[in-house]
């Protein structure tokens, strides 16, 4: 970490305010996690339902710290040649051809094979060297002068083998390339891993990380998030909207609406110039919040009651 980063992440409150300044409302746990991660030099493993702002956290932190965000999306079959480094085969091929042409010149004067071999040993081994190395996200993150925010997204989608492969970079901020040796980080990056709990991650990986769980926000926090993300929203509408979504989350649904869905819905309502939550309008726009037909059906029956309660909380009905 550079001194600059240390100043920006000087205390838990500073982290919270900093993130807020770039539009990310963090709760206390999130700020603590970022603060500790910087001071203990440990990656953060962020878990939680989809759409609560796991990826957004990394993006916002990068913006706040003015560091490059290097993102790696995980998927099944991802391997080191796509995550860490790759040899520039084309260039290597060209190199061999140049070598072929020059061979005559180089070995022209030698008389025996032994002599030629001797001469060959004299050349430095450039074939597998930094010249022909194509850095992929992980290696690039280690090479950044001023550090970087490295986001390893949806680690649970990758194979188990890949997890093991990450261990070295997570605990020591270095990678080993067999042909070259150990590459250490110029400046240790801030590493985020996100997971949707598609599968259980290994203990070895978890042990190396701070484990942050981001759940659905409470009404107060959600209201603040809406305020920052949808500026210009009417206060009363915001209260109704948050209350409605919070009630919706108490239902038994297949997929509960997340913060991102609340934001989308708020934008929709602003576009429709809605001031009061009317059951009909809610019914028409419910597909923004809920993504399953069965969920929409289940929630649809209770819209009247829920909108009424939301309006009461906003002080629109006695």
């Amino acid at each position, binding site marked *: 970490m550079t001194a600059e980063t240390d100043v920006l992440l000087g205390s*838990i409150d500073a982290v919270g305010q900093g993130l807020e300044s770039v539009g990310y409302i963090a709760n*206390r*746990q999130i700020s*603590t*996690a970022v603060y*500790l991660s910087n*001071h*203990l030099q*440990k990656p*953060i493993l962020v*878990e939680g339902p989809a759409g609560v702002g796991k990826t957004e956290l990394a993006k916002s932190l990068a913006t706040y710290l003015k560091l490059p965000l290097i993102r790696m999306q995980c998927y099944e079959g991802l*391997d080191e040649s796509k995550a860490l480094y790759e*040899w520039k*085969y*084309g260039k*290597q*091929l060209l190199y061999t051809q140049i070598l072929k042409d020059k061979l005559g010149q180089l070995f022209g004067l030698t008389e025996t094979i032994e002599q030629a071999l001797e001469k060959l040993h004299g050349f430095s081994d450039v074939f597998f060297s930094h010249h022909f190395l194509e850095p992929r996200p992980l290696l690039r993150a280690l090479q950044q002068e001023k550090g970087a925010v490295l986001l390893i997204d949806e680690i649970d989608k990758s*194979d*188990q*083998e890949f997890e093991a492969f990450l261990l070295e970079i997570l*605990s*020591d901020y270095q990678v080993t390339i067999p042909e070259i040796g150990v590459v250490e980080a110029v400046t240790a990056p801030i590493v985020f891993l996100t997971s949707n709990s598609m*599968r*259980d991650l290994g*203990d070895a990986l*978890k*042990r190396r990380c*701070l*484990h*942050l*769980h981001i759940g659905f926000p409470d009404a107060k926090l959600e209201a603040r998030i809406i305020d920052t993300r949808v500026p210009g929203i009417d206060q009363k509408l915001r209260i109704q909207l948050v209350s409605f979504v919070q009630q919706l989350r108490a239902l038994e649904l297949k997929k509960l609406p997340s913060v991102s869905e609340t934001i989308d819905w708020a934008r929709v309502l602003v576009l429709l110039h809605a001031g009061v939550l009317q059951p009909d309008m809610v019914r028409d726009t419910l597909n923004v919040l809920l993504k399953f037909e069965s969920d929409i059906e289940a929630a649809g029956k209770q819209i009247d009651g829920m909108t009424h309660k939301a309006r009461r909380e906003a002080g629109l009905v006695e």
Partner: protein
Amino acid sequence: MNEAAAPAQTGPSFSEPLRRFLTAARSAGVRISSAESIDAMRAVDVIGFSDRTALRDSLSLVVAKSLEEKQIFDDCFDLYFQRSDFDRPKEPGWRQPPDADDGDENDQNGAEGQSGGPNAGNGIGGGKGGGNVAGDKLAAMLLADDRAALAQAMETAAEQIGLNKISFFTQTNLYTRRILERMGVRPVEREIEALRKDGGNPATSRADRLEAGRERLRDQVRDFVERHLALFAKGENEKYREEFLKQARLSNMDRRDLDRMRVIVRDIAKKLAEKYGRNRKKKNRGQLDTRKTIRRNMAWDSIPFITVWKQKKIDKPKVMVLCDVSGSVAAMSQFLLMFLYSMNEALSNIRSFAFAGNLIEISDILEHEQIEPAIAKILQQIGFGSSNYGNALLDFEEAYFPAVDSKTTVIILGDGRGNYNDPRTDIVMRLSERAKRLIWLNPEYRSSWGTGDSDMPRYSPYCHVATVCNTVRHLENVVTDLLKGSR
């Protein structure tokens, strides 16, 4: 971080209360490795003890690595640090003795003093055997209502008598008494007695005050012991109970244990799935696939820069389960199905069937619904009738035989009691020839196979495995076998 060297360096700053808290968290069921305790210590170095929320958040970040663990951790944290509220008087009308007007402040100090840990040991209970001295001091503290000092004395006494060893609820009284005695309550009691005999006005008043103080102290110590029990012994008790449940017969299972049982089954299944579900694809190993290598390297004049290897796939077992859902076998069926469906990661294809008088396929129901309501639904659709194995087997042969191939393991779960109907052993024979393996799980003990209407001895010769299965332990063994056999 150099993990091996770290503990040595951290000796001095590794504070006692933190260590004890981690022990408590461990016994509550949070898994904490030694590397994680070192991290916890480093986190505390950065955060400090003063801001409790920050302390809890950061320890939770470092130590608890799943949502469940976080919940356990939070409970444990609250319980542990609640101890600082040691001696807030319970009855509102409690009279503050005039010489203890700074009591509240002391109280605060007492709370902070938790972090002092062993240094607090200079308190009163420290004097071993010096019963009278201890008694005098205790009396003085009781009269002065010096809560901080009492708290310290209590902690010290608790440590000396080894309160950490407490493991059962029934030991609460014993340990409470021991702590009190170590704190010197005996001489105080004698003094009260003597004062009462004396009978004078000041003596009686002193005796009253002492007695009130002692009563309060006893309540507090008892409280302390109970909390300690909850903190340190809960894990032990749970472990014991789980061990017991794993070996209990499923058909005799208490209703209130069912939920816990489900959790246990899911945990075991997860472990097995993790163990056998991995390494499904093996790359970079085995033989070179020449054809694919050349094709892959066409762009470079077929100079093999990228090698392609013959991928080896470990085939996952294909399983068909036939569950008897009549009467007493139903409980067993439920757990077997739960087991198999919890580990679909490790199995390639499960098809399940339920039968009593007739047989139906239930894979669809199980796939689309949560396992518990699904099972209830199945039992409603078909269940609890009297079983007819011959009929059910015939249904299976007619409709599903083509799906059975040499990679399929067929599991039949049932007691083999067909109510004197034709057992149709011929179908079982054909099934056994077709399938890779035929496993028969019977919840009855072997001694009752063949008694009454049981056709088990007729079926068992055709099964590759015919075994008793009526506890979660048995289930675990069967499923492990199944997965191993597939290799």
